[in-house]
């Protein structure tokens, strides 16, 4: 039984798909990585400026479907001004939410919760997590492009 389409395609998601925030290059980035979803060929690049353990700026390029693009856009909004340990907590919280793992100590995900509907569509979880896995690779300074496979 598939979930309700409207839970997946919420208005906020269409809004971020049509008008993605923080989309474009970022000069003087301190961290960057490229992510790839081999299932559909989508690619995303995440660039961050981290200073003093705080995400000063973050931008993305690429993505693809409505879910992947909106997720990347919402992620960049959620990350700005966050300390790196908060970023890690957000990653875990987001991941648990979309993979339907009961979160033990869930942080306040705020607007990111519009993507909770993805857990009813297992084929689309990778779309929602592409930007987040790429973010993790960027912060870990892993040189190889990350893959959702």
């Amino acid at each position, binding site marked *: *039984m*598939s979930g309700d*389409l409207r839970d*997946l*395609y919420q208005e906020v998601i*269409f809004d971020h798909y049509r008008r993605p925030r923080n989309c474009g290059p970022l000069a003087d980035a301190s961290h960057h990585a490229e992510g790839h979803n081999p*299932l*559909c*060929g*989508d*690619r995303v690049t995440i660039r961050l400026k981290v200073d003093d353990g705080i995400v000063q700026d973050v931008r993305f390029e690429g993505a*693809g*479907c*409505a*879910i*992947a693009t909106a997720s990347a856009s919402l992620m960049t909004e959620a990350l700005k001004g966050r300390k790196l340990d908060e970023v890690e907590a957000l990653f875990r919280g987001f991941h648990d939410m979309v993979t339907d793992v009961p979160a033990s100590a869930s942080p306040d995900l705020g607007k990111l919760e519009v993507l909770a509907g993805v857990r009813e*569509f297992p*084929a*689309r979880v990778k*779309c929602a997590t592409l930007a987040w896995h790429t973010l993790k690779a960027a912060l870990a300074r892993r040189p190889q492009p990350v893959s959702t496979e």
Partner: protein
Amino acid sequence: MKMEREVLCMLPNGFDAARHRADFPVLRERVNGHPLVYLDNAATTQKPQCVIDTLVAYYAGYNANVHRGVHTLSQRATDAYEAARATVAQFLHAPSPAGIIYTRGTTDAINLVAQSFARPRLVPGDEIVISAMEHHSNIVPWQLVCAQTGAALRVVPIDDAGEFQFDAYETMLGPRTKLVAVTHVSNALGSVTPIERIVARAHAANVPVLVDGAQAVSHLPVDVGALDCDFYAFSGHKIFGPTGIGALYGKTEHLEAMPPYQGGGDMIRSVTFEKTEYNDLPYKFEAGTPNIAGAIGMGAAIDYVAGCGIHAISVHERELLAYATEQVSAIPGLRIIGTAKDKAGIVSFTLHGVHAHDVGTILDNEGVAIRAGHHCAMPVMEQFGVAGTARASFALYNTRGDVDALVAGIDHVQRMFR
């Protein structure tokens, strides 16, 4: 809605898709509250009851290893396994069942030819010619053998319609060309290649040809004798048979000259630690206990297709393709990827402002199963400047009602994304 579909599926050529549809139990399933509309046949086809019954009959009635036992069940299993090989040979119009090698599928068959036929013959500077619309399974095995031998891959371009560029192909054939490996039908675009001319032109230059028939065998009549190709590969699961089984047709003179692909039981005549003698064709290429149920099931599937009539299927699907092309062409913002003059039942498309994945999810919610993505043909996607497409692909049991459900689904996608 159901009545309407039943009326619509009687096509002018008299082929009764509704009658055949009833042979496929999965097509009675409901998906997300809707009747299943299965339009992902290029990925895999559904199985008729007779194939399912054949698998059950083997496992429930005469499961045994082949070519081994003196007992009754082993003889029955061997007889059924070899009868299926004869069925494959007859279906492809191959001169003898000895030229039919069971494989895991098309991919396995192509790898067999790459490693057993091409690899020993290739030296640095030699060339293998493929086309720009090959599935990854007819690209990567050749890249591997090129890396092993120092040979190079040459790629025949396709035009913006997805047509094989014959003039460019002719200029690529030369003294260094050792093999041509080309698809019969493109899985991403539906283009039917001019395979007779491709083979004839290669043979004029003394170059053998492998044909990837994965997308052809359930849609078009195939006659390897008339075609005169050197190798023809296909998969059982794309012709209503089980997964994990397929076949390679090869000309006997090639197969006899080729070393075994894998070593093990069944492919030998005698083994000592000093010298092993290999078995005759086709067993030389079938090491280990094979996919017995799969082979027998594939035979049943081919019998089923032959019973429907491959010519009638071909006509039915062409009419369905023409109807689908006309219907989806009328949708604003829809671009058909692959508009070759000669096409088999595939409509690959993009929708303006909507990613193929979103199209796939929304259609699925209405019970319409299509493929969304790069279709294991990333170079094709690159040529058309898209990351992926949505692809509807037809089989003998599809009807105009299925196309109407697709069109209604696309309309829903567009309303959601407006």
